[in-house]
């Protein structure tokens, strides 16, 4: 069964017809040619497909496209302003926070979404005081980023890159 939906991807509204079984990830990659989000596991276990949906980080392989009709999606590609990289992306370059690069767009989106969550006061499993403003030390960053796997082992460089962007 097909359904007509529209997604705003990196600022551009796109209309498309999708199989109702199509995930947001496959809609982006196979229907719209937006291949910045990656498919690493298709089960929400690796985080490579992470984008920001209406500002919040979402694993698109676990989201059905028909359930996201009208959504505003920002991928790592859209985070950059033309050739001008987002500060988080610049930090990933400066700290060599990647090797093969396959998990990287997801790490970048997740990091930006995570900073917003912390800013909004969301606690994590390692937060001691659940009511105080969140202080994003290394342990907090690692905990909050643990849904984004990196097989090349760039974790220590990724954390250094993210720390640069903590206000």
């Amino acid at each position: 069964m097909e359904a007509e939906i529209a997604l705003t991807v990196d600022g551009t509204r796109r209309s498309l017809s999708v199989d109702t079984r199509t995930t947001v990830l496959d809609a982006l990659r196979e229907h719209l040619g937006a291949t910045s989000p990656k498919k690493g596991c298709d089960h929400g276990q690796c985080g490579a497909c992470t984008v920001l949906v209406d500002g919040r980080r979402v694993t698109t392989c676990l989201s059905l496209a028909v359930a996201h009709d009208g959504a505003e999606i920002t991928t790592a590609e859209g985070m950059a302003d033309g050739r001008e990289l987002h500060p988080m992306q610049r930090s990933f370059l400066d700290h060599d926070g990647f090797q093969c690069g396959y998990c990287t767009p997801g790490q970048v989106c997740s990091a930006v979404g995570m900073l917003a969550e912390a800013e909004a006061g969301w606690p994590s499993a390692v937060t001691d005081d659940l009511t105080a403003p969140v202080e994003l030390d290394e342990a907090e960053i690692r905990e909050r980023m643990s849904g984004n796997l990196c097989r090349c082992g760039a974790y220590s460089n990724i954390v250094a890159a993210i720390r640069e962007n903590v206000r």
Partner: protein
Amino acid sequence: MRVSPRNSPAFGTEAAAVETGGTSLAAVAPAETAPAEVAPERLGASRERLDGPAKVTGTAPYAYEHPVEEPAYLHPVQATIARGRVTSIDTGAAEAVPGVLAVLTHTNAPRLADTEDAELAVLQSDAVAFRGQFVAAVVAETPESARHAADLVRVGYGEQPHEVELGPEGGTPAARTDHGDLEAAMASAAVVLDRTYTTPMQHNNPMEPHTTIAQWTADGLTLHESTQGVYSVRSVVAPVFGLDPEQVQVFAPHVGGGFGSKGLPHAPLVLTALAAQRSGGRPVKFAVTRQQMFALTGHRTPTSQRIRLAADDRGRLSAIGHDALEHTARIKEFSEGSSTASGIMYAAPNRRITQRLVPRDVPVTSWMRAPGHCPGMHVLETAMDEMAQACGVDPVEFRIRNEPELDPLSGKPFSSRNLVACLREGARRFDWQRRDPAAGVRREGDWLVGTGVAASTYPTHVFPGSSARIRYEGGRYAVFIGAADLGTGAWTALAQIAAEALEVPFEVVDPHIGSTEFPTATVAGGSTGITSWGSAIVQAATSFRDQYGTQPPEGAEAEGATQPNPDAERFSMHAFGAQFAEVRVHADTGEIRVPRMLGVFAAGRIVNARTARSQLIGGMTMGLSMALHEHSVLDSRFGHVVNHDFAGYHIAAHADVDSIEAAWIDEHDPHVNPMGTKGIGEIGIVGAAAAVGNAAYHATGVRVRDLPLTPEKFLR
């Protein structure tokens, strides 16, 4: 120092002179002028990755992302028995699904020209050799309909008894080296150790699954493939389909990791190319799912390894015995050689090293980061820690005391060997001298704390057969070679090597890799990429300057190939390293944390300090992951890996990784190759898990001899 055959005895200048039409190399003036204000490149600089902006935005195209017109999608059907025959296949319901273009089975699939490699003889017979093997495949217009139709294929089987478990005994001898008399030395020594250790089955699990886009044209087969070597794919695939090598075009500009599993083509590639013969000319796309990867794209064998050590009362080894047992798929023999490194690590007059292989009804084994050396050094370095303890000698000092002067097996000198320097430098940085040797005595709150050390090594190879082409145009130098960058930093490092060899700034070099349109390159494996491809680039640069000097005409072009190394037979060539770890084990739960790891390596010249550090840390992180988590659990009843996804097969996540530092000592080795590099892709993982295990013993007094170091093993 300039990277050049002129400065390196590793290159035959005679051969080079012939290549360049008889020009004497010595007569060529070095390039003095640089076209830009920036200085000529020097190896070792810290360079940002050339592919970096594309990687952080996600715009670097991986194989599956290559845009193609009207793609068809493949979804396979996998065997649900571990051994036997397919007796019936009903494809009627699958074929009735709208959008299905073809259903392939062994009864209707195109015949392959060469089925000698049983792993690649896909859908050529009714035999099932392991659970998860391909028995059918659906090609459809959408991924959803392909997957749905694959679920509707009904397969009947005639099941036969199978065996997948590896015990401590059995197997056929694969290799054996004997020096002296191991038994006699064990019988007469003051201190002896005789232990058996196991390491589990492991899976490479690169983040990018194995993917293929296959399309047949009038000229042959075009493949967009996630591979560590476009030419490896071509040379293996061409005979399978009865093609000339030139009829197979392979593209892989960006590769999302491999760690060995993408070193050689596996069955999914062949299946996709077969299916593309039944798709009406449409390109066929297949991304192996994460679950399917556990049966179809290679794995590291489980091992059972017996180590015997004998020493005098001063801690000098008199004997080293290492007997390794591995499994191999019944249909394709492959051995890691887990006991190999025990040949060269430590001095001892008596030595026996054996390797046995046990055929099992399991998926095909293959390369995984530091094959052989990773599991083999894990157990040797764990045993060395046990032996140091038994001899009452500090484990750093114990290793230094048993340092060999020459390669113990071949009797050849080492081209360079700086294990002792790595151990000493690591000990200094890690504050090792303040370590209390007693195990299980330090407690901070609920946590038991310890530190450990282990040595690393990996052989230095140059694969013959790479060529490079350099072309000058518009003031820039384009370098062409069919190499692959799977995250290693090859895009950048090869440009650095070319810039140094040409004596031009890095900024005027444009590398072109990842395509069979470019000159032949060997596989990115065995830590040989930079050593092999770089050697070809240096040769091409020399040839270029010899032909054109420093003011080349527009369009000037020269080629060069990897040359034989006359020193290869004279020296034993290896990289070495020392790994240190601090471990905390929770006294009540056995939870294990690793707050600190340090690796110090002696791996020849480092090309790019930034990416080298990342690669070494990456290897150590994978070693940490091996220590704490990785274990593919084979179900002996059904023959499959039970935990076949990231929820079940854990790899290290952000939360596992605290401080990890990698450093290297300045090592100049004039014998290995023109650059003096030794390769760094693998050594980072070697010994890392042993350092963690040895630290866990120091923390708790509990010696875990079976990886991984899961909490229950510390609770007594």
